[in-house]
């Protein structure tokens, strides 16, 4: 042991590393002096960030020289750690062993320099060799790794490092100078592989189950997002899955998932099928399905393609996280910009909340016929609209909204996957005073004329188009209306007037009309 024990103490005089000539112009050896100064700078920065602590007294920091040549950095680091960890690991052999097996890592750039680096750090070009100061490696490479890496030629140059094919594509006997560290798109994966780290999946694919049947409830609980989240935790190089598209704008408990997905710049491709029937004939998946490619090494806008019944829009490069929900069809984005750029308040400032009066859809505590002191109560049961009566005193929630003129709008409207779509159910004017169950949301205004004006606005394609961008399932909640701007209630609104106000071009109008059907306010409004 004595020979090895003197390792840290041995004055390298003269230091062999000061004597070697450079072997080739991309193996410029760092002089030990210079390496030493760099490490001092590192130690100062570390101390500044860690309350004055010495980095060399830390037994868990790991050091990687991703393109080690002579091994000078690793050797200098080892020397300093050997000194710095004296108190923590008094036994010299244990200490050196810990440092070399757990703290100091290198990736060689050529076969020869890798041997040199091992010689500098382990005092032997084989980590398990007789003279090696490291015990406890199970391979001769130790933690200084080299493997011939090939360039990836694309029109005469390496697509990773730009090396010229003419000079570097030179057969198996010569060094390639393709540094492993940069000849990969997934460096973490590469490092893990090199040092026998965690098992790495290159690709995770699939079509996970979409929901758990909820026990008897009306809504199914989505689980596909858990498969996606788990897959990301495994840190693959690529992740690609088919999942329902519902997360893009709504979905029970999917808020956080939506936020993460939309703001993840590693989302590289998104192919969206708004009508699930185009993918899974005969299977109904509200809001359709989509598949995506997530690429660990990508950062940027996402290529989005929308496919419906064979019609393909895109790919369009889009920033998924532009809004809190994803506007699925790129053709809608320019229209939305025109509307939102005016900065008008949203119509949901005069829109009731879910269960505004506190009664669920199956509430039946009302009277069939009016009694003194009653107010009309609007409901939908068994798909039929009806009016009953309830004592004014029985209204304990939002009583200040009783004496308002209301435009009642059904909370749910399905109508299938086909376009053009009606988007929302027919509205109904409820004179003041009135109340309703959860089956309706309502806009509240001050007069019959205002209610009529608002109703005409609701019936426009423009209005329902803006709703459609946030309405991805049958439910139209308060936030679904967020992008519809407030108007003045002094006229009958028409699409022409609104198109003119917002500067909607002919092409955009045609798009709106292809998506949203005209609404006829006459006739009954059964759901």
């Amino acid at each position: 042991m004595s020979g090895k024990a003197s390792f840290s103490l041995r004055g390298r005089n003269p230091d062999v590393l000061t004597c070697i000539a450079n072997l080739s112009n991309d193996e410029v050896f760092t002089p030990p002096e210079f390496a030493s100064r760099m490490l001092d700078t590192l130690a100062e920065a570390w101390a500044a960030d860690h309350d004055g602590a010495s980095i060399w007294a830390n037994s868990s920091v790991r050091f990687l020289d991703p393109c080690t040549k002579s091994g000078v950095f690793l050797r200098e680091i080892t020397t300093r750690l050997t000194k710095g960890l004296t108190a923590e690991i008094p036994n010299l052999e244990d200490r050196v062993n810990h440092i070399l097996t757990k703290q100091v890592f290198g990736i060689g750039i050529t076969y020869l320099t890798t041997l040199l680096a091992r010689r500098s750090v382990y005092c032997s070009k084989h980590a398990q060799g007789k003279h090696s100061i490291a015990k406890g490696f199970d391979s001769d490479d130790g933690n200084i790794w080299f493997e011939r890496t090939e360039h990836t030629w694309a029109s005469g140059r390496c697509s990773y490092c730009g090396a010229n094919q003419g000079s570097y594509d030179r057969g198996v006997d010569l060094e390639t100078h393709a540094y492993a560290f940069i000849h990969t798109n997934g460096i973490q994966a590469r490092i893990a592989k090199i040092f026998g780290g965690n098992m790495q999946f290159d690709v995770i694919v699939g079509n996970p189950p979409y929901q758990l049947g909820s026990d008897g409830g009306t809504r199914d609980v989505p689980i596909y997002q858990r498969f996606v989240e788990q897959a990301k935790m495994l840190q693959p190089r690529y992740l690609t899955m088919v999942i329902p598209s519902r997360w893009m704008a709504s979905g029970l408990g999917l808020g956080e998932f939506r936020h993460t997905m939309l703001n993840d710049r590693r989302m590289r491709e998104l192919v969206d099928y708004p009508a699930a029937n185009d993918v899974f004939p005969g299977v109904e998946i509200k809001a359709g399905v989509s598949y995506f490619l997530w690429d660990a090494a990508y950062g940027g806008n996402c290529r989005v393609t929308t496919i419906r019944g064979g019609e393909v829009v895109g790919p369009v490069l889009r920033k998924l996280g532009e809004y809190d929900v994803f506007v699925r069809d790129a053709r809608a984005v320019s229209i939305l910009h025109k509307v939102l750029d005016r900065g008008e308040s949203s119509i949901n400032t005069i829109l009731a909340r879910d269960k505004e009066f506190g009664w669920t859809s199956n509430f039946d505590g009302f009277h069939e016929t009016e009694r003194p002191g009653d107010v009309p109560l609007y409901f939908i049961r068994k798909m039929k609209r009806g009016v009953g009566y309830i004592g004014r005193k029985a209204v304990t929630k939002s009583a200040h909204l009783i004496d308002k003129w209301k435009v009642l709008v059904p909370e749910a409207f399905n109508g299938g996957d086909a376009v053009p779509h009606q988007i929302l159910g027919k509205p109904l004017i409820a004179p003041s005073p009135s109340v309703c169950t959860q089956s309706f949301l309502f806009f509240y205004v001050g007069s019959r004329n205002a209610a009529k004006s608002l109703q005409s606005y609701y019936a426009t394609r423009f209005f329902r188009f803006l709703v459609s961008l946030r309405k991805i399932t049958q439910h139209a909640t308060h936030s679904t209306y967020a992008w519809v701007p407030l108007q003045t209630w002094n006229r009958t609104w028409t699409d022409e007037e609104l198109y003119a106000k917002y500067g909607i071009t002919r092409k955009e109008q045609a798009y709106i009309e292809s998506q949203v059907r005209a609404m006829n306010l006459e006739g009954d409004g059964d759901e």
Partner: protein
Amino acid sequence: MNLVKSKQRVADHGEVFTPSWMVEAILDLVKDESERIDSRFLEPACGSGNFLIQVLRRKLAAVEIKFGKSEFEKRHYTLLALMCIYGIELLEDNIAECRANILEIVADYLHLDESDDLYRAASYVLSQNLVHGDALTMRTSDRQPISFAEWGYVGKGKFQRRDFRFDILTHSSAFGEEGTLFAHLGKHEIFTPTKTYPPLTMAELAAALSAASKEAS
């Protein structure tokens, strides 16, 4: 192909199979990886293997191009291709179907019968890589933690194997999330497989199949 086995299974297990044109479109997004023999693919709810089957087909095409001329290499790289395919499936009939579908592709490709070492080694690898279990709880059907075998071909007919626990792998994002390279390497107390094997030959892997089935009976 039928995309649905039964309405009840759709409702209970979300079992809808992906049409093959979409499988191809998705694999084209990762074309290079799918055509690389040793890229590792995981399908966490693999059903009867719609994706994995196509992945294997692509890998075998690569084997044919690269090693088609040498019988020895071709056999070993076929096994390696298979070793890089992983799946988890909840329903027993699906996972059995999945293993059988994939084994059939290998057998067809190399005209193997059941007595061939490669057939038996492949069958053993599939029993290890295609897990009957729950991908979310990360437990097998008999409630053991799921573990995956990481295989590698070290050349000269030898394969190496290290086993990792799936639940621990999912913590790997603690490693290298942010910061510098130095920081990356600081955090992974989990760089250790649960088991490491000495290098194994194809014959030894084939023997492992008999050992495993003896144990099971």
